[in-house]
């Protein structure tokens, strides 16, 4: 290995070091690409500039899934003149059998550098560092073992789901199952992007939103209940015995955003018609309080990053739908298809769903996709007179 003095400074300290990982991997495997990448990264640290540029590599029949990188300083550091990433769709919920992971590692080490990001921000397994001419064979082997490429470009992107029913008492629907089925439906749109821009789906089992879906996906599927919070009065009492009345008032009653909780008989009473399903009280007292029995999902739309209207949080479009069986999932898919069609028809180039809705108008959007307007969609009715209507 060439000297990498700046990177080496990232080897010390208690947090596991990606530099150490890289170095050990490079030393063991002797892959020149790894050495080259380290040299280039060191050079970036020295000069405070990046040196990759994009390109186009895909596998047969697909138009996306590989993030292509060619070095801009290949004359200087030729060993990493290519350094492509293969995005692989992870299992919903990110649960693995060790066998599966080992197999993945073996295949990847065979064709690529052996560097893997678990996981990308969108939820992909990112296999980082492969040459263009090895991509197809690597993919073929992966695909035979059940793996498929994830999204990139102007199409459907890889989904992500929270632990949900697998390990969480708050889950209001089966995030993993829905994620799997929905993404199977959209698999063509993942592989062959042809929309205005990217489209993301994320699945969180409840409004805690452990996948950050509201801020980061075009449709956020959030677990929701419609009836009353389930309360186990004995467990409430037990909680108060352990934690005290002061804590009950300060940390539960007083923190309910709509003051829907009041003290009653040494325990609490919840005015469920005023509960906004924020999750707070359930989070503090999970043994005593649980989501209601009539469970399903809320759909928020339009979440995205900064380009170009500024960061946009998704907003409530469908406050509640059942999500119990295949049919419910199919209905969701129909709606999503409808929405994507509308967006693809009405959107501009590089415009995300949220931007299109804002530009064209919520009313037009709702009309376009056949949804009913509801007060749940807004924090308040319009405060300016600029609307047109005929009577």
């Amino acid at each position, binding site marked *: 290995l060439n000297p990498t003095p700046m990177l080496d400074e990232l080897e010390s300290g208690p*947090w596991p070091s990606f530099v150490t990982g890289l170095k050990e991997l490079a030393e063991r495997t002797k892959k020149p690409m790894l050495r080259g990448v380290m040299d280039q990264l060191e050079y970036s640290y020295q000069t405070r500039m990046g*040196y990759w540029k994009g390109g186009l590599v895909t596998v047969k029949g697909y138009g996306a899934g590989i993030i292509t990188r060619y070095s801009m300083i290949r004359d200087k550091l030729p060993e990493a003149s290519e350094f492509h990433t293969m995005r692989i769709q992870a*299992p919903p*919920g990110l649960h693995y*059998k060790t066998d599966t*992971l080992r197999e993945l590692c073996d295949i990847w080490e065979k064709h690529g550098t052996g560097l893997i990001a678990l996981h990308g921000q969108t939820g992909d397994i990112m296999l980082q560092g492969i040459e263009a001419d090895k991509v197809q064979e690597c993919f073929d082997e992966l695909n035979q073992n059940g793996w498929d490429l994830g999204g990139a470009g102007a199409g459907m992107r890889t989904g992500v789901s929270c632990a949900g029913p697998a390990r969480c008492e708050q889950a209001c629907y089966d995030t993993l199952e829905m994620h799997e089925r929905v993404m199977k439906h959209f698999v063509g749109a993942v592989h062959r992007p042809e929309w205005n821009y990217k489209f993301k789906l994320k699945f969180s089992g409840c409004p805690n*939103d452990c996948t950050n879906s509201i801020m980061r996906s075009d449709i956020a599927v959030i677990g929701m209940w419609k009836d009353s919070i389930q309360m186990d009065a004995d467990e409430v009492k037990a909680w108060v015995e352990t934690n005290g009345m002061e804590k009950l008032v300060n940390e539960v009653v007083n923190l309910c955003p709509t003051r829907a909780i009041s003290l009653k008989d040494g325990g609490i009473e919840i005015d469920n018609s005023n509960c906004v399903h924020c999750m707070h009280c359930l989070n503090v007292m*999970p043994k005593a309080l649980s989501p209601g029995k009539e469970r399903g999902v809320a759909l928020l739309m339009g979440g995205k990053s900064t380009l*170009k209207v*500024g960061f946009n949080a998704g907003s409530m479009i469908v406050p509640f739908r059942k999500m119990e069986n295949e049919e419910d999932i199919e209905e969701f898919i129909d709606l999503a298809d409808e929405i994507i069609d509308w967006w693809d028809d009405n959107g501009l180039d590089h415009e995300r769903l949220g931007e299109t809705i804002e530009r064209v108008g919520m009313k037009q959007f709702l009309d376009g996709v056949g949804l009913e307007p509801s007060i749940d969609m807004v924090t308040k009715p319009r405060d300016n007179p600029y609307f047109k209507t005929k009577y």
Partner: protein
Amino acid sequence: MSSPERTWKTVESGPYPYKEGLHPVVKKNYGKWKYHEYPRPGVLKHVAESGDVLYTVRGGTPRQDSVDFIRVLCDVADTYADGYLRFTTRNNVEFLTPDEEKVQPLIDELESRGIPVGGTGKTISPIAHTQGWLHCDIPATDASGVVKALMDELIDGFRGMDFPNKVKIVTQCCELNCGGQGDIAIIVKHTRPPRINHENLSEICELPKVVARCPVAAIRPTVVNGKKSLVIDEEKCMYCGACFGACPSMEINHPEYSKFAIWVAGKNSNARSKPALMSLVAHGLPNNPPRWPEVGAVVKQILDAYRKGGRPWERLGEWVERIGWKQFFEETGLIFDEDMIDNYRHARTTFNQSAHVRF
């Protein structure tokens, strides 16, 4: 099967099937969990309606893992977790076991292998990071390095559970893209307009796409040396770098003209308050690899003030909301300046349209 080498068909299978990776206790109690507890930092205890118990031990990873590192994780999982493991949406690794006795040995094993255990409850979870110089084509800084340097400093916060609430930190290696909202965000900020590489541009660039990408319509087509090119209205341009994402000839990156900015009070969850966008509270910090100490210092100032002032369950932004931004700047020692006043599309909605004021 037309070609002899290809004896199979590509299966467009989508996500890897999730059922295979579920621990048997998970499978059995799927959808039937009753509650959770935090036995100690880094450990979750989930109890099912059936009475089954599942312990989760959570460890930190560099995210940019090597196969060797992953194989180590697999070894640990085989020994202590029946051959199953999972990752969190924030790049932590989790080992699941119904067996309470395995918890401590598992923790010891992880720590001995340099994998810190923590990240549960009211804690600093690992910083969500992006690609940076390692792989992206538009970054103005690194990501993995920033995360590593900061997590080294924040490791006590990761291992403990003594913050008012969870602290979610994010980084972003260009000014616009992949990091999400966090209680604290560390984001690069360019400080001058792109220099246009006219040579390159005429060859590789789809001009209308670049023109359309600019949020403030600062780019116009022009002709340079007889070739179609672009010109930037430097008065309008606010150095966002969006055009560089559309075409690398819009050279925005520069070792000196890129600084760091710190943003706070973002929030994704709906708990108590609504999800919130983060606000700018410091900028002009040097882009100083390999350890960006100036950035770390500001982050720690903020965390210290929050840890001291926040009430139980108050996320960072909720703490600020309660005490007011004026107090936030006083408690953190940061300085409010005119650039922190919004001047973009919804600027007006952030003005103090009232006589409400604290002295």
